[in-house]
């Protein structure tokens, strides 16, 4: 064996051994801080009733699809001006339209009370795939699309282990503008938390299920929360 080949072999073996050790010890190789932008194109709603059609269009454009007009989407969903659900569209129409026109074939309407602390885990799991999430906000009267967020790692003062601080979330609000930044605790009040028990979002079922199992052991807290009332969902 030549000297050059020997060096290469040692290097490969060392890397393999190091990787094996890291995997066996479950060492966290993720970066200390991360900002996620899903690059979902922003679409403004054309009338006061069209927050859901605009959200469907954002989802479709993320997948480079050409969605129907907001008026056509609204009509297709049986929407009525000043109608019955978020922006005049009944809640049951959102996921099927997201599947048909928004490029999310397995879209479902997820709905849990805040007492089920896996709701936000599923939401962020889908958003970080990335896959569009149409979230209902303001106690169910408005909707938009999550476009990413920001988190960082700290040492948990209680356990000495790694603690993940969910800093903020970026929300495409069809009537307010792109990338509205909510601190994590503020998002819980806006979408799903103690100030907003009306927790709904439409998202990919498979993407929603992909994350929590992997992140099961993560220790997550919300920025802007007190670590008790606003402690983040353990599963995320």
């Amino acid at each position, binding site marked *: 064996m030549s000297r050059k080949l020997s060096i290469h072999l040692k290097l490969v073996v060392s890397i393999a051994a190091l990787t094996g050790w890291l995997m066996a010890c479950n060492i966290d190789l993720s970066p200390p*801080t*991360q*900002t996620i*932008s899903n690059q979902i194109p*922003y679409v*403004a709603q054309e009338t006061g009733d069209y927050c859901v059609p605009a959200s469907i269009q954002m989802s479709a454009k993320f997948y480079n699809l050409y969605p129907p007009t907001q008026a056509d989407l609204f009509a297709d969903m049986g929407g009525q001006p*000043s*109608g*019955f*659900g*978020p922006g005049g569209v*009944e*809640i049951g129409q959102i996921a099927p339209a997201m599947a048909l026109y928004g490029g999310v074939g397995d879209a479902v309407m997820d*709905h849990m009370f805040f007492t089920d602390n896996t709701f936000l885990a599923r939401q962020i799991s889908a958003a970080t795939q990335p896959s569009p999430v149409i979230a*209902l906000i*303001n*106690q*169910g*009267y*408005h909707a938009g699309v999550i476009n990413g967020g*920001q988190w*960082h790692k700290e040492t948990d003062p209680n356990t000495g282990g790694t603690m993940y*601080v969910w*800093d*903020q979330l970026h929300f495409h*609000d069809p*009537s*307010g*503008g*792109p*990338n*509205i*930044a*909510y*601190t994590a*605790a*503020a998002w819980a*009040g*806006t979408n799903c*938390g*103690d*100030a*907003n*028990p*009306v927790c*709904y979002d439409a998202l990919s079922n498979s993407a929603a299920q992909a994350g929590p199992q992997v992140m099961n052991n993560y220790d997550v*807290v*919300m*920025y*802007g*929360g*007190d*670590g*008790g*009332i*606003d402690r983040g969902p353990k599963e995320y």
Partner: protein
Amino acid sequence: MKTPLIFTAVAAAFFATTSAQAWNLSQCSETGLARHANYSNVLRRAKPTDRMYVPKPFPQNDAQIIEDFNFQFRYLRSVQAPEQMRPQEKQLLALLNGGRLDTKVIPVENWTGRRCLGARDGDRMYLLRFYDGRTHSEVARATLQDSGLMDATAYREPGVDPAWWTIAIPAPDDAAKTVGALVGQHLIDAQYVTTYGTFECNALLPCVSMRSPSTNTTYIADQSGHVVALPTNAKRFSRAHDLAQVEDIERVKKTLAPGQKLMSLGGDVYAVVEKVK
């Protein structure tokens, strides 16, 4: 760091917060008040390393409000690598650190369904409007809870429609004169409000509420020219009992006549308002 402090002080002195006549139309429950009080105590005792720390809990003036925002904004940027910041975040940070950020504070009464329900949600919010001190253009807006904790931040970005920075936010008294002329009444006690419902007022672009003493009617005007009326005897709903889930909202909305909308008054109360314009 003298320059930013000077700018902050100047901005605070120039844009004095006037909030002596704030009012609302619903009361918080004892449970809600106790929950908020407990949360407030935790906030007041928080240390700088805590995730809900603000340097001036429940700020009393514009300078303290701005100090609370600046602390939280700087913290959120400090845990990011520079290359991970969005361009708009970088711009705001540069203006802040360079002492070129002028900030205007507007008190907005919290009539959303979060008031009384969420521990961190109080009677009032603050809208902060950020201007580039050299160009005088508005570059961002943010909302804070009355506790000083950050809520939402919106940045001026290309392609935003409607471009909120081009939409004027008239002084409350000016809005009262305009709406008063429309309805033929003398309107008083005008103030900014944020609401939920099918008549929604985003705190980043707040509505103005005002009262007509002669007809016992409250009027609410948004920044798109819509006006609704809320008579004293308007039908009211409990969020917890009548509007707990979206299916309930759908059921209630089916009972509304054309021109009627649902609007939160804060606490547990939603009311039916009538379209005026």
